[in-house]
């Protein structure tokens, strides 16, 4: 191992990752200067550096051995989720974090990695190549994902729990579905989703309503959507620069360093900056997909596609929210949003992808 493995890492992927992380740190710095979150950028540097180490570690350990131990990992994260409900920190009415020493950990972020591995393992172990999934497989996979999802929803953290779905969808569709199954699932969803709406918390309903009609309550639930759109539009073609971004700096933009970091980026860097950042995200996802294509085995392919689907979902929902094309769900933008758990979880996932890369010629 060592130098050779180091050389074999997916360097284009890592370079794009580092650029995006760098943009993120700069944006966190600029968005929080003079606010109560000042100093968040220093922490973010720490998260990225430790994240890089984790990535390396994960790559070296490899997805295969992790998949071998996935039962323990699954039980571990479920245990952490239960622990969160028992001893977690309540913030904004939601119990998502466990205090560990000087910082807090969000177990639901790490569920993603475990689910990617668990689904990949199930598909490899119980589904023969070149076949399609049976209803039984679908049911089992649904339970596998549904259990942690329910626990996270209970926190309540709808946004994070929804991020598990693209992992499932990616795995299932890569393994293969019959058209009939797709049709039936679509029909069932079409019926159950409107019913599910009634089980949402009032603030979650408000978010959906205000997504559709932000002007109904511009000072209340529509506030974030409206302010985010104003910030983006205020950026114009070339951006306002770090000093003149009034939406970011005068506090009109909610949480400009985490969920709405892309609004503040859009205000300061303009359309040009946005296109550059989105191209980087596109390259990142395509590079992950490329690793899926060159993977040595189906397991690696499932892992990479799970990561790619999750990244795509994160970018779509977070960036879509920033421009008002997606409802507010409170999920972070990978690599740019500040925060320990989500940064680590992204680096861990990229570690899995690098692990697939390292093993692509092994046969």
């Amino acid at each position: 191992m060592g130098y050779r493995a180091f050389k074999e890492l997916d360097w284009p992927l890592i370079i794009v990752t580092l650029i995006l992380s760098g943009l993120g740190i700069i944006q966190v710095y600029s968005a929080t200067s003079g606010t109560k979150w000042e100093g968040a950028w220093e922490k973010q540097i720490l998260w990225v550096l430790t994240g890089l180490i984790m990535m390396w570690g994960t790559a070296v350990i490899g997805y295969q051995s992790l998949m071998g131990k996935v039962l323990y990992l699954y039980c571990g994260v479920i245990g952490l989720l239960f622990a969160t409900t028992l001893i977690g920190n309540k913030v904004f009415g939601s119990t998502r974090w466990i205090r560990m020493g000087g910082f807090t950990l969000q177990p639901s972020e790490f569920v993603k990695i475990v689910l990617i591995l668990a689904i990949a393992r199930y598909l490899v172990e119980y589904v023969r190549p070149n076949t399609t999934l049976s209803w039984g497989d679908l049911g089992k996979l649904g339970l596998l994902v549904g259990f942690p999802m329910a626990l996270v929803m209970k926190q309540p953290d709808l946004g994070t729990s929804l991020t598990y779905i693209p992992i499932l969808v990616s795995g299932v569709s890569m393994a293969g579905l019959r058209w009939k199954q797709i049709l039936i699932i679509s029909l069932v969803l079409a019926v159950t989703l409107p019913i599910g709406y009634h089980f949402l918390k009032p603030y979650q309903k408000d978010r959906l309503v205000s997504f559709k009609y932000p002007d109904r309550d511009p000072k209340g639930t529509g506030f974030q959507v409206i302010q985010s759109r104003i910030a983006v539009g205020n950026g114009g073609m070339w951006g306002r620069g770090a000093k003149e971004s009034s939406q970011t700096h005068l506090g009109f933009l909610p949480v400009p360093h985490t969920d709405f970091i892309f609004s503040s980026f859009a205000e300061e860097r303009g359309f040009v900056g946005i296109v550059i950042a989105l191209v980087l995200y596109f390259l990142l996802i395509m590079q992950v997909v490329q690793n899926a294509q060159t993977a040595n085995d189906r397991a690696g392919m499932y892992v990479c596609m799970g990561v790619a689907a999750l990244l795509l979902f994160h970018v779509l929902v977070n960036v879509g929210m920033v421009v008002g094309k997606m409802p507010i769900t409170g999920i972070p933008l990978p690599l740019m949003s500040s925060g320990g758990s989500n940064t680590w979880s992204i680096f861990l996932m990229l570690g899995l992808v690098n692990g697939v890369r390292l093993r692509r010629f092994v046969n």
Partner: protein
Amino acid sequence: MAKDSDKSVFQSSGPDIAFRDDPRDAAGKIAVFQYLTVLVFVFLVSGFWQLQVQDPERYSEAAARNRIKSTPLLAARGKILDRDGRVIVDNHTSYSLLLNREQTKWEHLPAIAAALQLDYGELSGVIRRNTRPQIIIKDQLSRDEISWIEAHQDESAYPEMQLIQSWRRQYPQGGFAAHVTGYVGEISENDLNLPQFSEYHQGDIVGKDGLEKQYDKILRGVDGQQRVQVDNLGHERQMETTQPAVAGNDLKTTLDLDLESVAELAMQGKRGAVVAMDPRNGEVLAMMSAPTFDANKFTGRISRTDWNQIMNDPYKPLLNRAIQAEFAPGSTFKPIVALAGLESGTIDEDTEFHCPGGASFYGNYYACWRHPPQYPGHGNISLHRAIRESCDVFFYNVANKLGIDRLAEYGDIAGIGHKTGIDLPNERESTMPSTKWKLRLTRQKWYAGETISVGIGQGAITVSPLELASALGGIANRGSWMQPHLLAGVAPKVLRVGHFNPENVERVVFGMYGVVNEPHGTGTTAAIPGVKVCGKTGTSQLASNKFLKGTAAGRAMKDNAWFVGYAPMEAPEIIVVALFENGEHGDRASWIVRDVLKAYFDKKERKAKGLELQTEIQDRLSATTILATHLVEAKPRQ
């Protein structure tokens, strides 16, 4: 081999065999995912394109609205000054309460309304109708109200409230010159829809009447704006550009406060109007109308009780009688009849008529005011005496000989039947009857008998005090009629020139000299020692005396008293008209004119001697002060 050595690391654990298969069968699905990714990114970029490239102005404006709190800096309205630069209408500073629409919460309004004694329904209506980002909801706040607002405008209470400095219009007390100055008020919804108010906004203070309305564009300033950058909690971060308010221009008028106050004083307790004008150039020196109203009550929003009180007053205090009251001129019209007679050759200086106290025309008997049994009549009478003693029979005969249309021709030259075009809103038009006039109005022909009454200024003929001043001022000015005006510094405008025989004009003027200065003159009370005052009394009937005798209608039906006076005879500098409603006889209006004339010539004398003008007026602007200074000098006598 490196690969072999790696193997041990990579395959250290896990069910290897199961994972060992070819992933290529998923290639098609992966391609689908790639296309999907492209679509997602195109979708996201299009979102930014819409906001940042297609419509960035909209959002940068929205961001500016978030960030900039602008407070109006209200411009002071120009002052209204008299001809010597003394202040008639001033401003004083006050505080107004502004509501920021963005921050306004409906549930706060009842509390705000209660604390400031505003009607909640009215307040919510104002806020609902108004579209401006900031709405002034109360002017002229009291000390208590200001301290209440200061205590409650923080984040936790009613942050939508904002105190701003504003100006309150200060008019002279007691309704002094109120009809000339007019008053200001909030612009009405109706006015806002008119094209001439296109540059005005809801809530703007605008001149509603008088000079305030006429010269609103000169008087009103341009409001400025103070812009402050605020954060999302409304805390001020830094000052932005401030656009200072530009005060309105002062309006210098031709009015003379000294004459105005003498006129006001003379008319105290009476109804009517006084107009003083310089016949040489049309400058209006004084104009008043009684009863009057307190213009201060109209600034901002007038209370309902005050409004009702003014509107229900049977004597209509808002009416500017000087330009809006149309009454028969009575005998004050006789100089024009005389001039018409002389100029048309109908009579000459020596033409005599016999006055036995009345005469019959076309089967009707017309009495002279000196009629039996009290008086014997004027006997044989010619022009000079007829003017001096105001013989009705003489003028019946002149009018009869002239005929209505020739009379109307001269009335027309004198301006009767025309507005003077003074720079005040809502001037009413006088009436000069003629055959055409009657035909147009009633589609009936003129009866010769109607001419007889017109000959003594009765019947259908009407004038306002200003129109009478203008009409006789033109004769005093020896045949040129100047347009009356109130704005100082404008070039005199000739309305009409009568190409008369100068001797005829002198005869009429001399007759009017006789009225004041000769024995048997009807207006001798207007005489001023050392000044050659000319004048003419007028008593215009509101109803026939016969009718009056039969009823107890009393004072309301008593004749109106008119007096017109000008001086000096050779080259008049001032003409004064007084209308004393229900004053019964012209000589009861003559002393009013005399006081104004005397004030004029006294002042002229003081000026010639280089004495100070009345400094107490310059120092303290208050109508009561002005009136008090004149109490000693111009005591009314009756």
